[in-house]
């Protein structure tokens, strides 16, 4: 009765363009999460480790990244754990695929004929592990964008080589109204018709699991979250397949290996009295594993002028990354305005008219600029010494 470790979307060497100087650290954290996933496989004494695509973030990864991955895979194979992986959409099996350029099997110290590490490709679509009574199919497209569903006309009904049938796909399951287009797309109906016991999926970065017909399927999600909306990331699946009462039973449980957390924080500018207060408030949520996206909205008090970079710098040690975006709208002056016969009054009138005109034509940026200018002008005219221009 085979026990599987199922992971996907490791994205080694990924770019994190919104993380700035924390991006390199995040890449290291992804590698660490991969290591923990391997540790999980060893601790759970799995028979086979499945990596359902996008082990690498691109086919242009340097040799050392591939070697580092091979070292981790070797830890599994040295314990007799078979590793089966498929190319994904980032490391797709095109001409210059990383799996063509580098021989993972050799890099993991295995001989050419060893079945301890198998990369399933269109040329090598399945592998049978007789001792486990298990066949693993890799439904891999030779291109990034599949011309047809990987499960089109696929059925294991006639499979006679092994009792337990598992397939690996890197693509999206079609969900009407939610997921209707993707590079690789298949339908729940096709999954149900496949006759598989377990479908090890990759491509979605958050944990999803379900059943179609007699087939259990799981998206374990990215091994570390890559963006703010990936709350279900950072997991691997432990899958037990066994036969009970003449029927194949599949038990799937999740194990958390990722540590990075993304969080977004919406702040009302009215609650932020000063930059120092903002820093103090955010320090209250300090977490070295947290990537915090702070967005200040609402109407900003007149004297609030947040230096986003400065705040991020001040908090850099307390978080994995803090990004502060001040999207608040400058408050229009309250109370009596300066008389229109004054420079300040004319200034206010002019900018107020500009704001109204910009808002009328839907030019939010110009309106925001004009609001900020109005606020700044009011502050400067009120008392230029109290305004710190940066």
């Amino acid at each position, binding site marked *: 009765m085979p026990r599987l470790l199922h992971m996907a979307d490791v994205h080694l*060497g*990924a*770019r*994190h*363009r*919104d*993380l*700035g*100087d924390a*991006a*390199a650290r995040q*890449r290291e954290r992804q590698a660490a999460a991969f290591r923990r996933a391997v540790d999980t496989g060893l601790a759970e004494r799995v028979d086979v480790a499945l990596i359902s695509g996008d082990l690498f973030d*691109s*086919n*242009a*990864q*340097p040799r050392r*990244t591939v070697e580092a991955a091979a070292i981790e895979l070797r830890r599994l194979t040295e314990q007799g754990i078979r590793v089966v992986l498929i190319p994904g959409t980032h490391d797709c099996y*095109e*001409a*210059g*695929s990383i799996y*063509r*350029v580098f021989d993972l099997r050799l890099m993991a110290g295995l001989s050419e004929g060893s079945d301890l590490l198998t990369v399933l490709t269109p040329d090598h679509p399945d592998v049978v592990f007789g001792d486990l009574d298990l066949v693993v199919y890799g439904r891999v497209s030779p291109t990034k964008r599949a011309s047809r569903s990987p499960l089109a006309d696929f059925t294991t009904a006639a499979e006679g080589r092994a009792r337990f049938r598992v397939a690996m796909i890197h693509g999206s399951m079609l969900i009407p109204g939610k997921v209707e287009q993707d590079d690789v797309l298949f339908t729940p109906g096709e999954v149900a018709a496949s006759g598989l016991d377990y479908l090890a999926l990759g491509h979605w970065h958050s944990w999803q699991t379900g059943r179609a017909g007699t087939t259990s399927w799981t998206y374990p999600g990215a091994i570390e979250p890559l963006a703010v909306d990936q709350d279900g990331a950072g997991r691997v699946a432990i899958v037990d397949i066994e036969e009970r009462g003449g029927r194949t039973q599949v038990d799937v449980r999740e194990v958390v290996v990722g540590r990075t957390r993304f969080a977004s924080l919406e702040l009302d500018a009215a609650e932020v009295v000063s930059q120092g207060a903002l820093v103090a408030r955010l320090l209250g949520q300090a977490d070295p594993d947290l990537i915090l996206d702070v967005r200040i909205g609402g109407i900003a008090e007149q004297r609030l002028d947040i230096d*986003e*970079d400065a705040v991020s710098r001040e908090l850099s040690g307390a978080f994995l990354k803090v990004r502060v975006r001040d999207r608040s709208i400058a408050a229009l002056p*309250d*109370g*009596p*305005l*300066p*008389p229109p*016969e*004054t*420079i*300040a*009054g*004319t*200034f206010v009138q*002019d*900018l107020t008219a*500009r704001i109204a005109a910009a808002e009328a034509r839907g030019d939010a940026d110009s309106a925001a*600029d*004009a609001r*900020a*200018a109005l606020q*700044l*002008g009011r502050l*400067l*005219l*009120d*008392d*230029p*010494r*109290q*305004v710190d*221009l*940066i």
Partner: protein
Amino acid sequence: MRITKLHVQGVRRHADLDISPAPGLTVIRGPNEAGKSTVQTAIEMALFRKCTSTSRELQELRTWGSTDDPSVRLDFEHEGRPGHLVKQFAGARGSVELSVDGRVSQDPGEVDELVTDLTGLASEKFLRSTASVRHHELVDLDKDEAALRDRLQQSISGADQGTQTARRRLNEMVRRYRSEGTRNPGLLRRERDELERLRAELVRGEAALAQLERDRTALALAHDRRVELDTRLARDQDAVDQGERAVRLETSATDAEARYFRLRQAVELQGRITAAERDHASAMPLAELRDAAKRVQELQFQIQELEVTLELRGDLPETVEVVKPPRWQPVALLAMIVGIAGLLAIGAGLTGILPDIAGLGIGLVLLVVGGGLGVWGARMARRVHSVRIQAQLQEAEIARRLAGRSLEEEQLKETRRERDALLVAMGVPDVYAADALLEREAAHGAAIDEIRAELRGVLAGVTVNGDLAAERDRAAAEMDQSRHALSGLGGVSSDPAAARERALRTLRQTQAERESAIQEEGQAQGRVDQNTIDADHVSGLAESVDASQERLVGLERRLRVYELTLSVLDAAEGYTVKKAARYLEEHMDADIARITDGRYKQVQVNEQDLSFRVWSPERDDWIPVQQLSQGTLDQVYLAARLGLVRQVTQERNPPLIFDDPFVTFDDERARRAAELLRDLARDHQVLFLTTSDRYDRVADAVIELPVPLARDVDGPRPERVPVSVTATGGPSPVAAATSSSMASLADATDDAPIPAAPRSTEPVTTAWTDQGADVRDPQPTADEAFPAAAPAAVDAAFPAAASTAAVPGWPPATSLDDPVAWPSTASAWGTATTDGPAWPASAASSDATDDPPGSVSAGAGAATSATGAEASATGAEAPWTSTAWSTAASDRPAPWATSPGSSETETASSGSWRDGLPG
């Protein structure tokens, strides 16, 4: 709007103050620390300060030492109808009530709107920049060309500090952002350069990565191509091998076929030979036959010779006599026996058988006999031998003779026999037949040899092991086998050599392609190895580009905002100034005519900068107002300044507050300014805050504020903070008094509120309550607490105030017109200047201590030491420095006329044409 009554509770030094300003000009007079500025603050609080001000703001407003919440009530009259405005400042519990035109509002926002509507003033700061004329505004107007227009612009700015600072700071920021210099580039340039650098590096990195991918793809393809060519090469090699095999098979078949045909011919020849061998004329081989024939010929010749010889012999005897030889053997035998017997006898004699002698004798005899017999026998034997030889010779002679015939006959017989035997052997009857046979046999043999030769020719080069027929069959089998194998090779069998050539050509081509592929693979591998680009590094660059872009967007946005603010501010200023210029031109002609006693009637205002020119009938041209006399210039400025107030307040005519703006004027300037105040008071309510009594005569009411009485004479002295201002020299009497009182105030704040101590001469319009006395009770007596407040001290410091205090109201009209009306002042200040640098600004400084937070004095530093704060304020604001003062002191003893511009010497030197001007 005109204030009819102001009631202040718990605001700074006024624990409880009621004043009732006149509708026109009200002079609010008092020495330093009397709370004049607090009166202004109270009005500002009533009109503009939020009643929900924070406790920190309240703390600064509260009467020192008091915890009571400040409150201000303002009774006013607006367009003939009464109203009131009450504000209770209690933090969040603060309240406001405005009643005007029978309408009562307690909504702070609405009250603010109504106040703005009543006064035309929007804020406290706006009031200060418009309806409040501060003491420094009229300083240096004639010296600084820009001062007049800047100050006028400030009054229409609607801003506390005017627009200059705002514009300057915005311009600085725009420059800081926009600067394109390479040595000190602006923020935008720096970020753009950084972004450009990062982008260029990223482009290079991405290109290198793309190249790496291409190289890797090329490597993979080259690898695949090489593997494919390896396979093709193996296939081509197989084809070549097959071709060669076909060729070999074909050759083998051809060879086998050739051999077969030769062997088949050989077999036929062999058959013919065999047949010919069977058809020999003689069974005897030809050579033998030839030898036999030859022998027969020879024998036949011999026979013929012998026959001839025998014919020639015929007389030979038939027999020969034979001589018998004697026999010698018996003699010899006898001799031997006798000898033996002799030996035996000797032996017997020796052994004793016989007597010795006998035996020996007999033996010897016998031996002699035997010896003799032996010799005889030997002779006989020699004779026998000789006889036999003779006999043999004889017989031989006979035989020879006989043989002479018989031998020849025998020879003949033998020869014939031999000949016959040979003929028999040859199978021929005679010699002639033998020759014929030989001839035939020779011909037959030759024929066979010919066939053999042909056979040998046929078999030349053909290895024959054993039977020719078997060889032939093997060759046939080999040929068939090769042909069958060849046909099994398919297409190549038709023309194996051509097929092999084709395969070889293909092989060579494939080899060349493979070599090329290997080279390409090597090159691709080399390119991959040489491309040291690191995807992580490129990722970092991309991430840095994004961060830089984000920073740049932020900077650009800030710059847009700064530039927009600046441009709108510039436009607003241009528009407003232009409008103000037109307004002033329309409204100031009459003022100018009045101010100059009709000398100038037309004014021209520059709409760019509010600079003034007046029409000079003498010059028949426009002249800048700076060329007018100083006094006239003051008035023109004030007229313009207040004209602008009318404009910006849209002629709502708010109360005007003058914070001793003429303090530095000489008498003449002060007189003219006072006259202007009176004119102003027709349209505006004017509150004139001053320490001097010289405006009393033009006032509709004079409100005198009490002198603070507390003095620092007893008790522990607070720790002093060293103050740098001491560098100005020893304190003047005024400075000493002020600092003393300031220090005492500082002490007093630690104890209890300082009441408004009643003075011996109560101001007529000041309604002091009894509360002051009640509050003062627990304190030391006024004289003890404020010894400097004793009349003598006050007189010394403020001689003019002292005289006014004695006679409330407007002083004699001559006091302002005649300089000699200020003897005590001159004397007092003369003393002060003699003793050292005076503190002429101390009055202003002490006022500054009453300024609300954010004012110059507050900004100058914390008032840990009142003296320090005061000195800082002096340095910051007072233009009448000790240098200016010393000049004024030498020419004009009046302490108020400290403006450098007031020097007559300087005025005279400005040009003779000014002499004719008024002022």
